[in-house]
């Protein structure tokens, strides 16, 4: 009886956890921030891109470690704050939250498929924009105006960009 029970119970599929070489992580973060400061000068459309956010989501999903994700999101966000004219901490808080959510989702769901990543990015990108909006409206004296068209465009553009970026970064990951 014990034997038949054992045979009928399906074996749970092991969750893959990937690692990245630290250099890949640092270089990717650095290049993402550099592109975020440079591209909008040359391409007007590039103001909708959010490379640091996409990089945060990717590494949070791949590492499947919430603490790591919080640290990564906070670090990237603070650097982004430092390079912008806003108060230090706005991007830090928003990205820490999004990184935590991404890592939590990656623990619960299998996010290696394109559709799954598409769905996750499609949820987290607007969530990030809304979190920024809420923080700015709640904490900053003169918050920027709410532009729904920009928000929607940003979601579409970053979802598309994310798909491409994730495929490129997948080449550098190694299973643990």
């Amino acid at each position, binding site marked *: 009886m014990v034997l038949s029970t054992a045979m009928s119970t399906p074996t749970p599929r092991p969750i893959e956890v990937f690692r990245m070489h630290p250099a890949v992580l640092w270089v990717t973060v*650095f290049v993402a*921030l*550099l592109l975020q*400061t*440079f591209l909008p*000068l*040359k391409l007007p459309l590039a103001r909708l891109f959010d490379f640091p956010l996409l990089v945060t989501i990717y590494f949070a999903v791949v590492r499947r470690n*919430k*603490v790591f994700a*919080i640290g990564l999101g*906070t670090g990237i966000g*603070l*650097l982004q*704050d*430092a*390079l912008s004219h806003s*108060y*230090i*901490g*706005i991007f*830090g*808080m928003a990205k*820490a*939250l999004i990184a*935590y959510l991404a*890592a*939590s989702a990656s623990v619960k769901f299998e996010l290696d498929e394109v559709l799954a990543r598409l769905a996750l990015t499609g949820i987290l990108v607007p969530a990030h924009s809304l979190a920024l909006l809420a923080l700015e409206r709640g*904490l900053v004296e003169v918050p920027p105006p709410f532009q729904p068209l920009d928000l929607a465009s940003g979601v579409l553009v970053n979802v598309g960009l994310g798909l491409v970026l994730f495929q490129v970064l997948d080449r550098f990951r190694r299973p643990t």
Partner: protein
Amino acid sequence: MFESSSPETPRVEQPPEREAPEKVQAFVGRRRAFFILLGVLVAQLLLLSAQITRDQKVRLIQVWAVAVFDPFARALHGMSDATTGAWKSYRELWQAQQQNRELQIQLVAARAQIQQLNEQAAEGRRLRELLEFRNRLPFQTVAAEVIATSPGEASKAIFIDKGTDAGLTPDLAVITPAGVVGKILAVFPHSAQVLLITDSSSGAACALERSRVQGILKGGKLNQCLVQYVMNEAPVAIGELVLTSGLDQIYPKGLPIGTVAQTADGNIYKNITVQPTAALDRLEGVLVVLKPPSGELQALNAPARP
């Protein structure tokens, strides 16, 4: 009275006051990441509030971040400018090449137009010269254009664009401001054939300008003429002008024919070679001398009374 627990595993009961912290510890442990997130968010809120309170212009983290990113941003900007500049130069070069090709075509067309205008100007000058010459002449003339030449080396004749429609008849003199050309040989409704003075079958009565020696001009070789029937004793100088004498009743008197190119004594008569003054190989516009009534022609050709 009897203890419910088995003798092998003595049950140790926890005091109630130690259960709560362990439960909290277990709770926090299970949600460690969440509490770390809360801690990070609170820390950043405090950081924000400190910034707003102090209102510092530039934070240290900003200085560090800008110091790290600035050289790379500059390098990237420089590369982008260089690439844009190179592309712009290439495009300008290509456009310059295109423009050069178009200008070359325009230049060729302009040169052709200039040539055409020069030709027209030269023709205008020539026609003005012809008109002035015609106005000076004491007889009536008709201007005509040379339209064709007779094929073959032996026959030296040209065709002009005036015929019976312009009142032309055979044996009319054809002249240019430079000199005599020939006489009309045949007339057609709208054209006429002119026999040049260099043709072997042509003939004109002539006289030398200085010596006044008279002779007969005949066509010779190499587009030159010969003056016949001039005695060996007659004084003839090289370069002397040969004029029409008017005695043939065809050419009016006093028109230049040519200059003496060569002279040599023959048996009885001199062998005089005359180079025509009219450019017979480059004729374009000519004048046809209309024949006046015979009395007037005689008057024209008569020598001047002292």
